[in-house]
């Protein structure tokens, strides 16, 4: 643990604890409504059957019906207990949106949301960040269990990946020269801020660990000799520190994407960290399979299996559980990428298991796992972007939510 992270984490944990104690995330003031909720419910509109509102998704209805079809949105107050939500899997999380293909409307059909402006850098970062995390875990495992090949490969890959990550992140900024503004604040409400501090903690540790691998290259005498002597133990500590932060690094990116208004990202928040954790493990394993001799690669194979399991479960879940919002993950670029990821993952796992004795097969399966991770990350990225670009994914789930809320009240 580095110094930077503790206060934030503690603050946030405390904060969450208090929220939970206060009766969670839904305000409990429904009986004493603030503002003017009751007033707006007055009027002929309030008596219209809620079904009309659902029927009016996307349409005013014929001229004469406008009054009735138009109004219920305003009528019932919005603070009804979210019955449907609490029923979902994973607490309130898994809102299951079985929305039929329905008509919807928007202003000249244009997107209601602004699609992410993140370029491919961010998708690439999702991969490199995960790769770094997975590699650090691999390295730490190698370090603790005496598998120097895994350690070395993991540490070096981690440094490379985290360096690439930094590049991608800064390159994607509209004002790259202001990257250090990220360190102005530490905001628990901002996954990106949390991620920044995680990276701040992780980066130096991973770097030191990797540099330590270079200790034997230093001359044994002279000014560098103390360095040569001190580096390996420092690397051990740093490597473990990096590994400790690594799971956070690998999974916060799930929150990073989910913490947006992008429909298919946000609604996938239960799965995204899992997918990314799995993907990180698999990619780390891929490095191990590529770099380590068969004798040392056993943990990497098991990591590959575990990672693939998490990743496949998660990806399957987002492609099926979210109703309409699963659609963007199944079609178009995102669909192709995720299908490719699934195939590559499967191939990688099979190869890893089958190739216990074949360095070539191991290396191939390692490559497949890395490629799978890339494909999955880009697939998830594109799926979300597509969901933001089409107003359908904004309007219909929200309409459905209104309908259910109102139905729940009746």
């Amino acid at each position: 643990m580095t110094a930077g992270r503790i206060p934030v984490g503690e603050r946030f944990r405390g904060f969450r604890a208090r929220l939970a104690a206060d009766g969670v995330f839904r305000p409990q003031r429904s009986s004493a409504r603030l503002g003017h909720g009751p007033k707006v419910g007055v009027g002929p509109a309030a008596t219209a059957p809620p079904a009309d509102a659902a029927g009016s998704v996307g349409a005013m209805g014929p001229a004469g019906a406008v009054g009735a079809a138009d109004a219920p949105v305003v009528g019932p107050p919005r603070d009804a207990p979210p019955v449907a939500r609490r029923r979902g899997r994973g607490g309130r999380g898994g809102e299951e949106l079985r929305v039929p293909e329905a008509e919807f409307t928007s202003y000249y059909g244009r997107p209601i949301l602004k699609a992410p402006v993140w370029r491919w850098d961010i998708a690439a970062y999702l991969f490199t960040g995960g790769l770094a995390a997975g590699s650090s875990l691999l390295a730490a495992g190698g370090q603790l269990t005496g598998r120097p090949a895994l350690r070395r490969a993991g540490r070096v890959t981690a440094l490379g990946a985290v360096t690439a990550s930094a590049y991608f992140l800064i390159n994607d900024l509209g004002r790259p020269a202001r990257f250090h503004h990220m360190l102005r604040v530490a905001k628990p409400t901002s996954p990106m801020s949390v991620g920044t501090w995680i990276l701040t903690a992780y980066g130096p540790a991973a770097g030191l660990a990797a540099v330590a691998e270079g200790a034997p290259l230093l001359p044994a005498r002279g000014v560098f000799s103390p360095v040569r002597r001190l580096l390996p133990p420092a690397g051990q500590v740093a490597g473990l520190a990096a590994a400790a932060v690594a799971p956070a690094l690998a999974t916060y990116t799930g929150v990073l994407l989910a913490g947006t208004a992008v429909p298919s990202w946000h609604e996938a928040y239960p799965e995204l960290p899992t997918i990314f954790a799995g993907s990180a493990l698999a990619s780390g394993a891929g490095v191990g399979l590529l770099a380590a001799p068969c004798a040392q690669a056993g943990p990497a194979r098991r990591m590959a299996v575990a990672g693939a399991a998490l990743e496949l479960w998660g990806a399957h879940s987002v492609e099926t559980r979210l109703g309409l919002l699963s659609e963007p993950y199944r079609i178009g670029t995102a669909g192709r990428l995720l299908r490719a990821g699934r195939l590559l993952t499967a191939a990688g796992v099979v190869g890893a298991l089958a190739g216990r004795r074949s360095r070539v097969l191991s290396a191939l399966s390692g490559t497949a796992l890395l490629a799978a991770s890339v494909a999955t990350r880009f697939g998830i990225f594109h799926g979300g972007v597509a969901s933001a670009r089409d107003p359908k994914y904004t309007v219909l789930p929200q309409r459905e939510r209104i309908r259910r809320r109102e139905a729940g009240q009746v």
Partner: protein
Amino acid sequence: MGLRTFIAGWPVYRQLTGTDPLGRGAAAQSGRSAGLTARTETADRVARSVCPYCAVGCGQRVYVSDDRVTQIEGDPDSPISRGRLCPKGSASKSLVTSPLRQTTVRYRRPYSTEWEDLDLDTALDMIADRVLAAREQTWEDVDSDGRPLHRTLGISSLGGATLDNEENYLIKKLFTAMGALQIENQARI
């Protein structure tokens, strides 16, 4: 800036020590934001004016800093407009500060295909020459019955609806004294 000031100004420090632990408000405010003030507050002077577009006559306040117009907005005191402006009136600052405004005299020689530059003083002299010449060439002193006409129909003028009353007064006065009768403006259109 000392290290202490630097740290005290660091929003993370302010988060930890101040009233805004989540860093969403007070702690995150930048120095620039804290020092922000409306430029109308710091203007050197304010001219009370009237919108130059339609004839509703909305009151405008023209704010000037360093002899440049920095803002034009509605005058809330006006009983006509109550401080409001339409899009055109609201665009008045862009109008008067437009980079497209022509600020030098341009001259097109007969049969020329291009503009040339011309000194304002020279332009005025040339126009005076031409006015006198046109007058001389087209002067009508009396009609066929000997009744006075005292005029020229060789000079025309169109405009005045966005000009000041004082300007129109001098225009009409001078043209009338010149005998130039064909003076018209938008009111005929």
